[in-house]
């Protein structure tokens, strides 16, 4: 279990995190934010590399700054530095031996971890000769090696090709099924959408939103959104939709109509009618993915409104 | 669709001259120490010999009544603005050694190694500066920075002494030795920063480059000191130290009494040999395949 209790973190004059409170009981949780939003700071706080300036960070009820807590945490950092002259296997075994394991046990566990990330064939080559993807896998291997109860993956997909991404995604899902709590950060939202049960949106050091993709979507009910309507007669569809009050704008194409709307019953009733008349082949929401939600949420106007509402709630 | 179809337009520009490109690099290098507060403080600390010289100058000029300036020269030629040793002291005195070593370690010895460690060499070489120009720019930057304390400072002190002297006699007397003295300190600074910059090109990290430079300067001086004690009378062994060899050569140029007596031809030969060796290594280490790999 992971918990942030009113955590703030400053680097000198720079506030990296401001009053973050969140509790993660399990599952795969995505940590989303733009570069510099505070994702890595949250990860580093959980890995025990940093201490909060204010508040408390707990992993299984204990502060990760204490060495023994880290026994339960596997951390795949975003740094690309290694002991380059070591082989991948030796690197993982070295880190395992720092747990206090004996050499033989460490070697066996390291070999097993390398196998899990698909690096068995290359595990005795020096890291210096590894590709970017292989280096990512070595980091993942060392994080997995001691079967942690909490796995922190900081931008794990960076530099991976699509096949490797798929493999890593499958591995993360299997770990979740085995009961491991996984916190995975990324600024590529699609990556998380496939695996994350829950998403935390971080922006300018604040926790902007917390929930599933669909819960986040509900946050945005009053937001205008867009629909793409494929039709054999798009002009006719457009003509009918101009009469609907909630439609804000229309863009006509040869095969489709893009509708910008505030939503509401009138629109859906009209769409049902058009469908019954055979004028609609497909209706596709254009903004229901995480990217759109994120782009909308971090819009400054909405952000300040959201903060005001939150502050009002807090005062109440 | 071609790239031009997408609205691409080639940038029109006037290519700058080689010297301007190199100077841009040198200017960047020269300012590198001043990017942090600590760098600036260290630079100021390294100017202690110059500050000491200025203090002595004020005594000589009679700003302080500490028995007048006449006594300073009797204590040591290094203390008298009427002697060339005074202007060589910031670079070549026993006390100046630590500060020049520190500054060259901070600037020259780190200059190329830090770019190599940051994998910046290949980027720089796509900007119209080849390995030779790059090396020259780095050396020029660090030479200019170290030269503030060892060349420009002493020259400014001479100007100050000249303005403070009551008549033309100081100017007339000092013009006999000043050009040679300035040439000597210029040579000494250039030689040391050149050696340090060349060593910097060999190392993988700035720390390693710095320690190599310290080993070459302090270690070789220790070896030279040991051998000069064992081989008494065989003064050439002092030339084993690049520092001592450069210093002896500079003293010969300035025409001052050397602190360590050995043949100037041996010293000049040693400086040339050391220079040739490090430049050959630097040339090798700055080849594209080494820099990119």
């Amino acid at each position, binding site marked *: 279990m992971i918990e942030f209790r009113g955590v703030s973190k400053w680097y000198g004059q720079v506030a990296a995190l401001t009053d973050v409170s969140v509790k993660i009981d399990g599952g795969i949780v995505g940590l989303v934010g733009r570069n510099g939003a505070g994702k890595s700071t949250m990860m580093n706080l959980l890995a025990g590399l940093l201490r909060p300036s204010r508040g408390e960070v707990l992993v299984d009820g204990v502060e990760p700054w204490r*060495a023994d807590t880290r026994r339960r945490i596997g951390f795949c950092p975003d740094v690309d*530095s290694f002991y380059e002259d070591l082989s991948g296997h030796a690197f993982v075994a070295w880190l395992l031996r720092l747990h206090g394991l004996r050499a033989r046990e460490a070697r066996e566990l390291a070999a097993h971890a390398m196998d899990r990330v698909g690096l068995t064939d290359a595990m005795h080559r020096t890291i210096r000769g590894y590709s970017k993807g292989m280096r990512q896998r070595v980091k993942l291997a060392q994080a997995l090696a001691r079967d942690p109860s909490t796995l922190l993956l900081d931008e794990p997909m960076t530099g991976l090709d699509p096949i490797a991404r798929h493999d890593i995604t499958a591995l993360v899902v299997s770990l979740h099924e085995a009961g491991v709590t996984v916190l995975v950060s990324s600024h590529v939202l699609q990556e998380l959408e496939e695996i994350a049960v829950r998403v935390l949106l971080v922006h300018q050091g604040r926790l902007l939103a917390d929930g599933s993709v669909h819960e986040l979507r509900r946050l945005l009910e009053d937001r205008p959104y867009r629909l793409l309507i494929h039709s054999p007669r798009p002009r006719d569809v457009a003509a009918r939709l101009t009469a609907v009050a909630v439609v804000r704008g229309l863009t006509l194409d040869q095969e489709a109509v893009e509708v910008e709307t505030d939503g509401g019953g009138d629109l859906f009733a009209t769409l049902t009618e058009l469908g019954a008349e055979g004028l609609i082949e497909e209706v596709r929401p254009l903004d229901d993915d995480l990217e759109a939600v994120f782009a909308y949420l971090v819009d400054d106007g909405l952000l300040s409104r959201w903060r005001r509402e939150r502050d009002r709630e807090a005062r109440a | 669709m071609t790239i031009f179809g997408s609205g691409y337009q080639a940038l029109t520009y006037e290519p700058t001259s080689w010297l301007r490109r190199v100077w841009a690099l040198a200017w960047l290098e020269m300012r590198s120490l001043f990017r942090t507060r600590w760098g600036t403080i260290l630079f100021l600390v390294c100017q202690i010999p110059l500050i000491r010289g200025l203090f002595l100058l004020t005594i000589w000029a009679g700003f302080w009544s500490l028995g007048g300036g006449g006594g300073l020269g009797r204590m040591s030629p290094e203390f008298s603005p009427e002697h060339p040793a005074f202007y060589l002291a910031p670079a070549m005195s026993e006390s100046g050694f630590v500060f020049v070593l520190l500054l060259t370690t901070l600037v020259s010895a780190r200059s190329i190694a830090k770019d190599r460690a940051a994998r910046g060499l290949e980027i720089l070489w796509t900007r119209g500066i080849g390995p030779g120009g790059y090396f020259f720019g780095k050396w020029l930057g660090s030479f200019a920075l170290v030269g503030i304390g060892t060349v420009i400072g002493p020259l400014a002190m001479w100007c100050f002494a000249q303005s403070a002297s009551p008549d033309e006699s100081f100017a007339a007397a000092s013009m006999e030795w000043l050009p040679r003295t300035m040439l000597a300190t210029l040579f000494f600074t250039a030689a040391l920063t050149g050696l340090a910059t060349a060593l910097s090109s060999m190392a993988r990290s700035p720390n390693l480059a710095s320690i190599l430079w310290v080993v070459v300067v302090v270690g070789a001086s220790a070896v030279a000191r040991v051998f000069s004690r*064992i081989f008494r009378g065989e003064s050439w062994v002092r030339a084993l130290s690049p520092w001592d060899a450069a210093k002896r050569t500079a003293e010969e140029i300035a025409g001052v009494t050397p602190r360590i007596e050995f043949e100037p031809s041996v010293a000049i030969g040693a400086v040339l040999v050391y220079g040739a060796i490090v430049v050959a290594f630097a040339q090798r280490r700055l080849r594209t395949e080494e820099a990119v790999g």
Partner: protein
Amino acid sequence: MMVAIRTRQTLEACRQALCLLRSHRLLWLILAGAALVIGISVFVPDKVARRLTGDDLFGLPAYLLVFQFGLPTILSYFGLWAVHDEISDRSVVHVFAQPVPRPCLLVGKWLAVTLVGALAGAAICAAYWLALALPDRPWRRGLAPDPDVLAAFVQGAALAAPGYAAVGAFCGATFRRPLIAAILFVVGWEVAVSNVPPRAGVRDLTIADPVRRFLVERIGEPTGELGELLQASMAGQGAGELREPFAAVAWFTAVVLLAATVIYSRREYDARSRD
């Protein structure tokens, strides 16, 4: 149980630092340089050998090169290298994320550098002494180097190594440009303090001075050029008030190492790049 685990972790950190040191080019470069100097010294002309005693011929180079240059400069460097290099390239993140207390890591690294320094210093002295003690050399005629002098130098190397390694570790853990700080200590502080009268008491805040006093005590009033070198600037009021050499180095090392450990344990190195 916990003590056993911590000991094992410290020793593992030491082993890993030794492995990394083994592949450091500078170590081999220094050993090769030492071999070269020993080689040259062994073939010094007879006229030199007749003027100097075996002890001088051994002691002068061994003291100037090993104790005044090699151990201070190279060991401080290795100390800071072991601690600071992985901080500067951020590979230390992997290590810090493991369940190992940072003091164990730092002490392990310090131990490794101390071992390498003491062994290398002692080995160089021993090799040089053996080379001079070869039969059929001119100084064999009653003036061969004394085994007691070798013993003193070997013990001196073992005494100096922990101190300089601790200074290096402290600089590595504390400063962004640790090498400059280490150079200031070795070339600035130690040299400056050796010219301060003994009664000022600051000489105990160095390693070079207690080690020199240790050599003088252990050899038993050395004579000749070696005696001159070792006893230079030793005279003066208050010389007797200084701590015992071993105690002085032990105190100095303990304090510096403790400070390094506290800083290494508490500092958030990963926050450096952003401030």
